[in-house]
């Protein structure tokens, strides 16, 4: 990092606090062609890298894989939009950071999956996020459920992260190299999400009477949306056959076992009696959503739609 040219040594501290802007002629040094915000440590797979491969014609998903990536990407996008709302509202600053971090991870996965999916239809991640209508989204209902109180957010995150972990673990072996690469990056992050939500389930269940009451109520509220995550259909059957994807039902046993262990450690299993909670019909993968998604999209898309074709 370099200091602005006209700085005196006593003012600039070597190595940080640079307010140059990385643009030539801006009274600052730096590579004028570089994006000021293109800072990613290591060689992590970024959505921009996938977009570049697409432009070079190096990768292109089959229609089936694109549909599949759209589902997974929409799950992450909708959840990131929900979690993003917590930032500046969390119960502790540490949770502002943690929930923000999980939101960022989910958004990162979504951007990669949507970028890849879009290659099949000549659409960008932003075309897909901002210019589709409600019935064109393929996310499952769980992801659009409102944040509720902290317990509801944790219960939702607990289910999501155990589901996503099992999914990404298998997708690292996908015959589609791009899906495998995105899953490999996502897996490490989702592992942390599991840890975060499991710890909170234990704390809330074993904390005060109030926290226990709230986490029990929270699970009752979100558990009806579990079944939908594990429903197979024709698309997933074809993808499982080709090895590019998996049948969601094949994740269920591991999911049940691992979540069951935590819920049992939390002493919640009997009280919740999950098997008796009626399961919602779902339909998200076919574009049938709850009442919540419309509001979420209205807020997310409003500015982009005010300026169609604009670049940001």
């Amino acid at each position: 990092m370099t200091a602005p040219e006209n700085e005196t040594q006593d003012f600039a501290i070597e190595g940080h606090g640079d307010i140059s802007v990385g643009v030539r002629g801006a009274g600052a040094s730096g590579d004028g062609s570089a994006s000021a915000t293109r800072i990613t440590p290591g060689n992590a797979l970024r959505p921009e890298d996938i977009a570049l491969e697409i432009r070079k014609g190096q990768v292109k998903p089959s229609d089936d894989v694109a549909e599949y990536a759209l589902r997974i990407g929409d799950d992450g996008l909708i959840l990131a939009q929900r979690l993003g709302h917590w930032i500046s509202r969390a119960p502790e600053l540490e949770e502002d950071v943690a929930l923000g971090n999980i939101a960022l991870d989910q958004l990162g996965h979504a951007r990669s999956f949507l970028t890849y999916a879009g290659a099949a239809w000549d659409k960008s991640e932003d075309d897909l996020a901002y210019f589709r209508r409600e019935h064109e989204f393929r996310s499952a209902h769980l992801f659009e459920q409102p944040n509720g109180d902290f317990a509801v957010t944790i219960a939702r995150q607990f289910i999501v992260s155990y589901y996503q972990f099992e999914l990404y673990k298998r997708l690292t072996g996908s015959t589609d190299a791009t899906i495998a690469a995105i899953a490999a990056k996502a897996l490490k992050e989702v592992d942390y999400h599991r840890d975060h939500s499991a710890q909170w389930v234990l704390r809330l269940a074993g904390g005060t009477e109030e926290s226990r009451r709230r986490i029990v109520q929270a699970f009752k509220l979100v558990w009806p949306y579990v079944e939908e995550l594990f429903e197979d259909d024709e698309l997933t059957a074809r993808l499982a056959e080709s090895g590019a994807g998996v049948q969601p039902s094949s994740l269920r046993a591991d999911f049940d076992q691992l979540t069951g262990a935590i819920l049992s450690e939390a002493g919640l299993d009997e009280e919740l009696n999950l098997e008796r909670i009626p399961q919602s019909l779902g339909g998200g993968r076919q574009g049938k959503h709850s009442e919540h998604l419309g509001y979420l999209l209205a807020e997310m898309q409003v500015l982009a739609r005010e300026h169609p074709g604009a670049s940001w």
Partner: protein
Amino acid sequence: MASQNLQSVPAELSPEELEREQAGQAYFDRIISEDSRIEPRDWMPEAYRKTLLRQISQHAHSEIIGMQPEANWITRAPSLKRKAILMAKVQDEAGHGLYLYSAAETLGQSRDKMTSDLIAGKARYSSIFNYPAISWADMGAIGWLVDGAAICNQVPLCRASYGPYGRAMVRICKEESFHQRQGFEILLELSNGTPAQKQMAQDAVNRWYAPALMMFGPPDDDSPNSKQSMAWNIKRFSNDELRSRFVGMMVEQVKVLGLTLPDKDIRFNEETKKWEHGPLDWNEFKDVLAGKGPCNAQRLERRREAHDDGAWVREAAAEYARKQAEKEYAA
């Protein structure tokens, strides 16, 4: 360094205590004159401790309250890349608040106490966050101008005489540079976009320019605490000096943006070799500081709400930790 012995020693001290105080003061004076660092366990004058505690906690509060105007646009960010960058930025600010509260805790006050002072309206934070972020371009202007001004203020603080503060500032400044760049990039993109986007960018710069300049604090002849802070090596440059440097940097960068600063009086004074700017409305500054800004009540209420709504979560975590410790003890 002269005139460090500002502490009047209370009369009721025993001879031993008096001796300890004098030895402490001598050590402190030597450290300051050597431009070295005071650490938490070192003796320090009570006024030095209070000044630092006030400054660091205000700085922490500013980071935390400052999350709000930007969080206001996370859900509406117009592209996914911008959404990710903005989320990361607001998350950084929570992290800065955490380091700074920790640094302040080394001076003997708990984060809980600082938070309750903030919520009770007893503590201050940077008054600029009492202005509303009403358009997407405000995300650019806040990054470029507000974070830019913050960096000018904060880079010299990396050498502040109090160790934990200086070290926290090193990391904070690194991240603030990224924040300033992303703000510049937002404005650059808008300025090169559609006429409506360019207008949005200019409007945001017009609104944030003067409040950003006032972030450096009142003019030197109206800044009673500055002199002492400089003598203690907490502050290194005067308010006006930092403001002038900042104007000089912005005047160049705004040209690249293809925008203008709303100040016809900016000029480089060849005699003093300093940048000068037009008059600022210090009455407005004082009004906003006194609680009359457009968002003062809203910002505090949001913080109070988050804190109160989260009380049961914090209680649960504490209770769970207590029970776990009890179990371990029993085992």
